[in-house]
């Protein structure tokens, strides 16, 4: 059975490293893997989506509505925006950080309130955490992506050492220590 992980966020938040880490790890675990990214216009502070799919044989590079086993969201509003992609009984791992989109910045709309409660009310399994604080604790606000990967790792039967090895292979050596710390903080260890 193909498993689907959707990574959503705001352009510039570092979702490409998260998908690189997952792709690398899952390939090492012997799965067929496809990772689909967005480039160009959609990166400029816009809403961005990356699809990671793995299993015995993966065909489509994208995830469609009602198909995601996991939505990993770098930002609260983006988790709500892509809720339709979540499978029944799927899980949302979400950073509670709020980044105002332009209609909110200009005052044309309000940033939606109580989003976590609203997501939970739909029956979704929601795992919400303040990744930005944990990333800063690890040493850099940019480590939000690895904090999220740490939290996501709790839901996989892949030994911790394998995740750590994948981090070593995917991030520059000078940031390894910071990222390992961020990963463990996200994982809650």
């Amino acid at each position, binding site marked *: 059975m193909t498993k689907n992980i959707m990574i959503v966020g705001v352009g510039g938040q570092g979702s490409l490293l998260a998908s690189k880490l997952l792709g690398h790890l899952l390939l090492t675990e012997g799965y067929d893997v496809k990772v689909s*990214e967005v*480039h160009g*216009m959609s990166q*400029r502070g816009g809403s961005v989506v990356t699809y990671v799919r793995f299993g015995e044989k993966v065909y*489509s590079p994208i995830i469609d*509505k009602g198909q995601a086993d996991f939505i990993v969201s770098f930002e609260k509003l983006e988790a709500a925006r892509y*809720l339709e992609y979540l499978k029944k009984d799927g899980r949302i791992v979400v950073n509670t950080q709020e980044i105002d989109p332009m209609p*909110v*910045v200009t*005052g044309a709309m309000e940033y939606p309130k109580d989003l976590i409660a609203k997501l939970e009310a739909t029956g979704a399994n929601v795992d919400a955490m303040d990744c930005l604080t944990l990333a800063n604790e690890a040493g850099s606000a940019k480590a939000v992506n690895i904090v999220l990967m740490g939290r996501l790792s709790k839901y996989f039967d892949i030994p911790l050492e394998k995740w750590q090895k994948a981090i070593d292979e995917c991030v520059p050596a000078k940031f390894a220590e910071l990222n390992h710390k961020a990963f463990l903080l996200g994982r809650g260890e």
Partner: protein
Amino acid sequence: MKQLMLGNQAFARGLYEAGCSVVSSYPGTPSTEVTEEAAKFEEIYCEWAPNEKVAMEVAFGASLAGRRSFCGMKHVGLNVAADPLFTCSYTGVNAGMIICVADDAGMHSSQNEQDSRHYAIAAKVPMLEPSDSAEALEFVKRAYELSEEYDTPVIVKMCTRVAHSQSVVETTDRVLPEMKPYEKNIAKYVMMPGNAIKKHPFVEERTAKLQALAEDCYFNRVEMGDTKLGIITSSTSYQYAKEVFGDNACILKLGMIHPLPKKLILDFAAKVEKLVILEELDPIIEEHCKELGLVVTGKDVLPITGEFSQNLIAEKLGVEVPAYSKLEEQMPARPPVMCAGCPHRGLFYTLAKNKCTVLGDIGCYTLGAVAPLSAMDMTLCMGASISSLHGFNKARGEESEKKTVAVIGDSTFMHSGMTGLANIAYNQSNSTVIILDNSITGMTGHQQNPTTGYNIKGDPAGKIDLEALCRAMGFESVRVIDPYNLEECDRVIKEELAKELPSVIISRRPCALLKYVKHEAPLKCNPEKCVSCKSCMRLGCPAISMKDGKAVVDVTLCVGCGVCKQLCKFGALE
């Protein structure tokens, strides 16, 4: 070794393994990474050309000289390169020549959704269409063999989902073919009427031979399953079809999209009860099947616009799709925006303030059309800002000349703005052209260009002096402004619009995302001084928002450009 590769990276790997020696391209999403990845191989000479036409002619020259060559572009780039394409179909090649064209169904980053397959048909050259990274690598290698065996350039067509998806590939070593001898051959390579007349029948014979090949070749294959349903498909649509139907359908997967086979399709059709054609955009395979007398389901059920997906195909063909939940309330959209500190912002603010009519162009600065700036009236294609401005001014006269401008980026200006500028210099309209020189090709992810002084590898290169170029064309008034300085922008734009002669303004400040650009300390808003006038909000800067009636600066985004500070009459931004 198995590894995950982006489709574009696998394409570049194919170029490397096949012994491609010369690459010339112009960047364009979703094709850019093919050339960027190829440039990482020391064995391949790579360059960014000023535009796709130049790139294709460079690749043709390298092929003529005897080395395998390549040029890459997005779908609209092939419009620019169509001129050499149609005639190098007649001349054929010496060493193999491959053209990558990357379509953008769904228009993730494009101004239109044209289907490049029409070009292969019109130019009468073979076109291959891989459906994942492994095929991209393998098709490129085989495309060189086709090119040399059939004496033709070969187009390998990518699309956003193949170009920008990673899937598993296996790599091998590079094999560099011997350089082909160059022999003068006027009948083959000089396309004047007497020679071209003899070459056209050659092209028709070549297409007939390629069609015979299409009947039984590596690129086209049948996957038998339940014979109740037969699907003819290609590219990413093949992946969606397999996702939805698995073995519950027979699939004819076409990797060679031009020319299309006949017997292969008729034999396949004879084995299945119902025939469905799955292809994004135009009904090209469908029309071909109809000409063969087949009854098919295609665009009568499936959309001609936008991308496909597994759910879309399932739904249209009567397969159940998964249920999902959604929130009732409407979420605020998050469209792409100009970055905090973007040098274009101050200029567009000034144009909006002066109520200018702005004829725009292709690049990040097209985002100047987005609210609250809304400072753009038109965007068509690369270079159209300048030529259209001339036409606009010729039609409306002085009234328009005093308030209408063209805005065009440095790279777009080099691509096809220069010829439009030559027209203004020659045919004389009192037009005001603004070149937004941010010292890089921004939107496609920071590629060098002829005005930056660096080549694709980041090494020092020739640098075109924009001021000198414009003056040499005959523009007496060429002025440089700093878009971070609103007073200067306002004054110079007013002065140049008022002048009774054509003029060029160069708005110069490097892209705020460039690594060498030093940022100032972020600004803060003093809530005691902020009177909630919202003047600063007119900039549409993502770093400024209103919280509890006061402006707030997001310190993680602000780069201290200070443009907002110039708008605050109360000194609240400090």
